Every structure is written in C-alpha cells, then in structure tokens.
C-alpha cells in the first residue's frame, strides 16, 4: 500500500516537473534585468520555502513527541528535518550561483543568505546530535529539545536581520504584496513548489520507513541479547 502511494506520488511529481521544466525553458521569456539566470528562481524559492516550512513542521512534531512520547513523531521530525536540510542546501547553492552571476560574488553577508546559513548550521547540528546518541528514547528527547530551540532561534535570526538593511531582492511573489512578477511568470513557480513538495513527501516517507527498520533492528537485537 505504502509502495503504491510512493509510486503514484513519484509519477505525479515527475510529470509536473517535466512539464514545468518545459514551461520554464521554452515559454517563459527572459527577465528584463537579470536575463536567463533568473530562471533559477523557480528552484531557489520553492526549495527555500520548503526548507523553512520543513524546519517548522519538524519543531511541531518534536513538541507532539514530547507530549505523547510516541516514537512515530520522532521519526517524522527527523525525516522532515533531514529532507529540509537537503532543500536548504539546494537553496544555498542556487542562491550562491545566482549571486555570483548577478552581484559578482559567490557569497555576500546579506540578510537572507546569512540567516539561511545559520538555519543550516543549527539543523546540521541537530543531525549531528542524533548521530551522537545511541539510545533511541534519549535521542528522541534531546533532539526534540534542540529542534524547538533551533526553530525559535531561526525565527529570531530572520526577524533580527530583517530590521537591518539588505541587498537580497525583496519579496516579488504576489502573495507577499510584491507584485513584481508578470502573471505568466509566477505560475510555474507555484507548480514547481508543488512538485518539490511532492518530492519532499516521497523522501520523508522513504526516510521514515528506514527509521522503522532501524527501530525493528534495535528491538530484535535486544530480544536476541535477552536470551
């Protein structure tokens, strides 16, 4: 059943992505100021949106775990955070390449780049912490606390740097009152967001299945040693 869901999601995702890539390259015209490179926005922005939402979802699952002590929520939190870290990496890399072409530098200590890097560091620390703890319940408990602290901190970092000047482009999506993109150009971004969201769901499901294998191995080992 689970495999069927995975397969369906993967197909839908692949279809949307292929169709979208066609739209992005063939139909959407080059942007006035930025030229061809601007197309990177169709992956950069969805990746970043997914990464940040993922960290938030990870925090919520961590809190639910702390209340219910149900290991399933710990698995979800771990899977979601790991996949969000991958998307954050994509966001940083695409952002860096975009910056190189537009601003001439591979990196700039600007608002969003810096806060994204800080988020990345915090949650890379979360994953490292998980690797460092062997006992599953202690691991779940401590990483849940780190997830909560990390997400709150990430939010503070965002807000704090927002008070400061920045050189990163301001919001252009119409939902954020940017109104900076022509209507035809905005749609592929949302389609890509959907496609990448499906991809992230698939990856999280795979990751969670691996977590349940690991838990089964753990309990079988304990059973074996108890004889």
């Amino acid at each position, binding site marked *: 059943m689970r495999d069927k869901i995975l397969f369906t999601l993967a197909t839908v995702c692949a279809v949307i992505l292929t169709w979208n890539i066609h739209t992005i390259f063939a139909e959407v015209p080059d942007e006035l100021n930025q030229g061809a490179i601007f197309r990177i926005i169709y992956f950069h922005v969805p990746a970043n949106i997914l990464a940040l939402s993922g960290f938030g979802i990870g925090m919520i699952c961590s809190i639910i775990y*702390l209340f219910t002590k149900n290991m399933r929520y710990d698995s979800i939190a771990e899977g979601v955070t790991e996949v969000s870290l991958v998307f954050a990496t994509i966001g940083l890399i695409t952002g860096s390449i975009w910056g190189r072409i537009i601003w001439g530098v591979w990196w700039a200590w600007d608002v969003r780049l810096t806060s994204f890097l*800080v988020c990345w*560091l*915090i949650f890379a*620390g979360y994953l*490292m*912490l998980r690797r*460092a*703890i062997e006992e599953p*319940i*202690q691991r779940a*408990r*401590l990483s*849940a*606390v*780190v997830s*909560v*602290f*990390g997400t*709150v*901190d990430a939010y*503070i*970092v965002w807000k*704090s*740097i927002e*008070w400061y000047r920045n050189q990163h482009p301001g919001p252009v999506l119409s939902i954020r009152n940017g109104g900076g993109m022509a209507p035809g150009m905005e749609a592929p971004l949302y389609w890509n967001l959907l496609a990448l969201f499906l991809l992230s769901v698939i990856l999280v499901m795979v990751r969670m299945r691996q977590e349940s294998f690991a838990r089964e191995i753990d309990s079988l080992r304990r059973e074996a040693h108890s004889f």
Partner: protein
Amino acid sequence: MGFFHHVWTITHKDLRSELRTKEALNASLAFSMVILVLFSFAFDPSAEQIKEFSGGLLWMVYSFAGALALNRSFAREVHNDCLDALIASPIPPAALFLRKMFANFALLFAVELVSLPVFGLFYGVPWTGQIGWLLVVLVLGTWALSVIGTLFSALTINLRLRELMLPTLVYPMMIPALMACMTLTSDLLQGIPVTGENYTWIRLLVIFDVIFTALSIVFIDTVLIG
C-alpha cells in the same frame, strides 16, 4: 519564595566551590589572554580599523573563553553521581538550572570585566567612554551566552563527544545575540551613542534573553530527567 531561596543557596554553593579552586576562572582568563595575543598576530590594523572590529574581536574572545567554562558547568557534577543526587533532591529542576546559569553568568562576567581593560591596553582602544551602555551590553550578552550554554551543557553531559557537540550546538544558536553584541560594542567603542537603529539591537538582545530563559526553564525538566 522558597524557589528563589533554593536558587540562591545553591548558586552560593557553586560560586564558593569555584572560588576555592578557581580552576574554571583561571583557565578562562588565561585562555582569553592567549586569544587576545593571537589575534594581534593575525591582524595588523590601524587605529581606525581596530575600532571598527573591536566589538567582533572582543565578543569572539568572550565566546571562546565562555565555551571553556560552560563545558565544565554540568560536567563537573557527573563525578561521584552528584548530578543524580541533585536531580533526586526536592529542588525543582528549574531552580537547578537557574543556579547553574547564575554561577556561569558570574564567572563569565568576571572574565569579561578583566579582559576588557586588557583588551583596551593591548589594542589601544578607549573603553571608558560609554561605560554604562557597555556594561548593559555585557550583561545582556553574557546572560544570553549563559542561558544557552548552560542548557546545552545539561543536554550534552552524557554524550561521548561532549566537548565537540557543545560548541557545535551553542555557537549557531548564539548568532543573533552575538551579532547584536558585536555591533553594539563596536559602535560604543567608537563613541557612537545608542539611539534609533542601535536601539533595535538592544531590544533584540532583551527579547532573545527573555525567550530563551523561558524556554530553558520549561525544557530543563525534559533535558535532565525525561
């Protein structure tokens, strides 16, 4: 009232035991001096340049020296099962956390107060100009470092790679507070008063301190006991 009595009694005990041996105090002080000297080899700045990054330099010294002291804060209790005894006692975990935090705060603040004139001496930076605001920034920044550091020290006690995990977790978390402290300190050492835009950094520091103190008190139970 009883809660704060607990906190005070044990902070007092912690500080007294630390003052007797002065291990952490001496180590942190020595370390901060060493870093100050090392940085002087790393850069050869002019008087103007040094004032611009004085804040950054100073707070890097404080964070590194701080990590040294913070590592020991809960780790010290692990020997002879002192930590288990403390947890089993009727003292609420929040009180335990606060007293550790106050003790760390006192230690770090002492180190900072000593390092500041030394820094001013080595780098020729006048630091007495806006001493009032400077002390406010030091207090707020040290509070932030103590809160985060103490909680994560409690979190990492039983880990194999404790000495590595603590800085890895603490420094990214501290970035907003450190950013605020560094900017404010640089500005204050250059003689720029705290107004308008600068004031937002003070607000940020206060918000940071309040939020993370509250979160730490809420979560210390989970971290220490489960």
